[in-house]
């Protein structure tokens, strides 16, 4: 039904169409991504579960899970947030709803095509930049550049004097994503090989997290918390500190992902020191958001969007404490390449960032569709299944990682590590399956919100209305 607007005049497209399209696409990709994750986890716990078929082999599906959640769920939820938050903060309309709709449709097409090919084994063999270069160029041309143009033009055409913190992050991150994506894939366009290829792979992987996912997720919190609580942001100066320290410190430690490779030692040491300094933006962000909550902590219990956002922000604390220190040589030595890293990656993407994006999607879809959330019970169930599922996953994989690390340095035969990890593999599968189930409930809840949610009167915020179910 949104597709009918693809060829409409821009003025004729209802405000928020692009954001709604992005929002539902994001939830569907979240369901696909976590479904694949759960299936993969089952194979690690029970290796003879669905076996002997190329298309269902673990090695064919693992990267599809990863890219479905990064490019599908997380990035599309970001695009959704940008499509409605950027104009609101500029007191204007989105520069082009039509571009937004086409952006979303091409995004879905490119991602479906790329992931299907990758599932068949068509890969560049580079982690996180697994797409072959023709698809990389398609991603840049149809996904990241149109999104950035829409965001920048909306900010330029704004009708406010200044630019709010959230929009600094949106404008800068869309720019940095384009650069990181195009530069990070240079080894594929120009066939750069050897250590250069290995380093650039991790340069991309580090920066796509540090300059895209982390800042945009934080920017969402900078919007949701003041908007819903009604409190002004605690400090714009701390916001400045956060922004600039992200640009300066988070863009430099790429080499800490390859501490055991023969990269130049100065580069590894530099990366390691810079890696500790990511605590600067992290502490600035967490303190700023939590201090903004002053006097409104009751909403942490009562309001779903605030609860999602604050939990995401609280998860940023262990995330950055791990992230800052696990890459120093003395700790990296123990945990590199183990399940600890898998747990950490899920803490970043499924913990910290997913909770923030879920809040943005909940708030945005209700605001734009002018419909109150269909069921609070389902919303609560979604929250708790997601939180308990994620925690189960994170704790079990952290323990598995510590076992693996001990096995590594004490030279335990590898098969004994596999045996010791088995119970945690089952726990991880259960946790992942809970997360997957929660996304089904969520999709149903948002679908019913669109169809049967209480209509929100003009000028009111969704949270000002009582739930009916």
């Amino acid at each position: 039904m949104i597709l009918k607007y693809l060829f409409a005049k821009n003025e004729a497209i209802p405000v928020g169409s692009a954001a709604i399209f992005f929002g539902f696409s994001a939830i569907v990709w979240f369901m696909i991504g976590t479904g694949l994750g759960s299936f993969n986890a089952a194979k690690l716990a029970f290796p003879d579960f669905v076996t002997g078929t190329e298309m269902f082999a673990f090695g064919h599906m693992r990267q599809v899970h990863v890219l479905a959640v990064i490019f599908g769920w997380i990035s599309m939820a970001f695009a959704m947030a940008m499509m409605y938050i950027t104009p609101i903060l500029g007191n204007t309309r989105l520069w082009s709803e039509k571009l937004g709709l086409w952006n979303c449709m091409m995004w879905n097409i490119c991602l479906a095509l790329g992931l299907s090919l990758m599932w068949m084994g068509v890969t560049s063999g580079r982690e996180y930049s697994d797409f072959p270069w023709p698809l990389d160029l398609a991603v840049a041309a149809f996904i990241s550049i149109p999104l950035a143009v829409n965001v920048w033009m909306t900010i330029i055409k704004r009708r406010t004097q200044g630019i709010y913190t959230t929009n600094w992050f949106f404008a800068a991150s869309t720019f940095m994503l384009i650069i990181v994506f195009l530069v990070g894939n240079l080894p594929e366009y120009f066939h750069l090989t050897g250590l250069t290829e290995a380093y650039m792979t991790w340069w991309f992987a580090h920066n796509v997290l540090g300059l895209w996912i982390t800042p945009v997720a934080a920017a969402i919190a900078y919007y949701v918390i003041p908007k819903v609580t009604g409190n002004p942001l605690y400090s714009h100066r701390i916001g400045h500190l956060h922004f600039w320290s992200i640009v300066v410190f988070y863009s430099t430690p790429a080499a800490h992902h390859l501490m055991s490779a023969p990269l130049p030692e100065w580069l590894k040491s530099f990366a390691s020191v810079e890696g500790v300094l990511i605590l600067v933006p992290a502490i600035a962000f967490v303190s700023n958001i939590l201090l903004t909550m002053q006097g409104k902590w009751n909403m942490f219990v009562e309001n779903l969007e605030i609860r999602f956002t604050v939990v995401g922000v609280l998860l940023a604390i262990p995330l950055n404490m791990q992230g800052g220190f696990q890459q120093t040589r003395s700790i990296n030595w123990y945990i590199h390449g183990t399940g600890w890293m898998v747990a950490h990656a899920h803490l970043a993407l499924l913990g910290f960032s997913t909770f923030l994006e879920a809040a943005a999607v909940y708030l945005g879809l209700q605001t734009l569709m002018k419909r109150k959330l269909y069921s609070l019970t389902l919303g609560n169930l979604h929250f708790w299944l997601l939180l308990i599922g994620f925690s189960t996953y994170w704790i079990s994989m952290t323990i598995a990682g510590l076992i693996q690390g001990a096995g590594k340095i004490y030279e335990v035969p590898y098969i004994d590590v596999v045996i010791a990890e088995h119970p945690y593999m089952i726990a991880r599968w259960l946790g992942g399956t809970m997360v997957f189930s929660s996304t089904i409930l969520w999709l149903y809840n948002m679908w019913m919100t669109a169809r049967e949610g209480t209509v929100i009167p003009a000028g009111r915020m969704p949270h000002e209305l009582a739930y009916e179910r």
Partner: protein
Amino acid sequence: MNFREYKVGSRAFGLAFGLSMSITLFFPSFDLAASISSEVGLDKQLTSGWDSGWQIADPFLNGLNKPLKVLVRKDPKSGEPMEPVYAYVYPAGTSLPNGVTHTANLGKGVEELSVKQGRITEAKKENGAVFLIKKSDQLLTFEDKPLSYVENATATKGWTPDEVLKQAADSDILHAGSGKTMFVREGCWWCHTLLPEQTQDWQVFGAPPMLGDFNGESPTAFGSDRKGPDLLHVGSRNASREWMMLHFFNPRLVQPHSIMPRFDYLWGEVDADGKKIDFKKWRSEYDEYREGKITTPPDVPMYAKDSEIRNLIDFVVNLK
């Protein structure tokens, strides 16, 4: 309204971001470009050829456009027995490796030797080429080991790809290049790293790689998320093809606690004798064995010479 009042901010942003790009990309590029290919590095890039990930000549990663590593026991010209030597055979039309097309990639010293003495710039993709790794008597590396260089045996000795392949027994031909493509396509590297760490790790999995061990290799497929043993030196620990065959068909045959997937589908349709492989029957018999109804597992079919599993096993046992 525009970014006017953000002029200082925009410039500061450009400066900060540009500086971090310089430090993380521009400065390291001098160090990385100065790396001199070791013998290991030469072997890897000559074995794996142009690229092991997606490439135009092999869009579905079927192991096309790849060289063969051949143990030459008899002189291909005269047929006389000779000291066995590994030759890297690039049949006509096969893309040449990065170090041959872009010789600077080999590093200082190795490049000059390979071009002047090895005559590698005379190799042409249309005609194919045979390469050898030669040791020089120059002591130039930081470890004071003799430099190795690439020799284009087609130019220096007149060996053509066809002649070398004709005199070689099938068991002396390693499809390790295509095998690396299988390694990438099947996602072996999602669980097995190719990077022993600089810790006690290396006493089990072997020495960590050195600078110069990767020149020209793409993708390096180091892996990051280890769920099985490191494989960089697996061929030195276990080079038994029989073990590999059983292990790939069903890892639980040789290691009951393994969580590795079965790769029986890489056998293809038929076995070495051209008989159709009955996977369904094999699995039901295996289930009976697992349940204790029969005492021995069913026999694993011998793979065909041109099967994908042969390429993968060749690659794995070649990881010395």
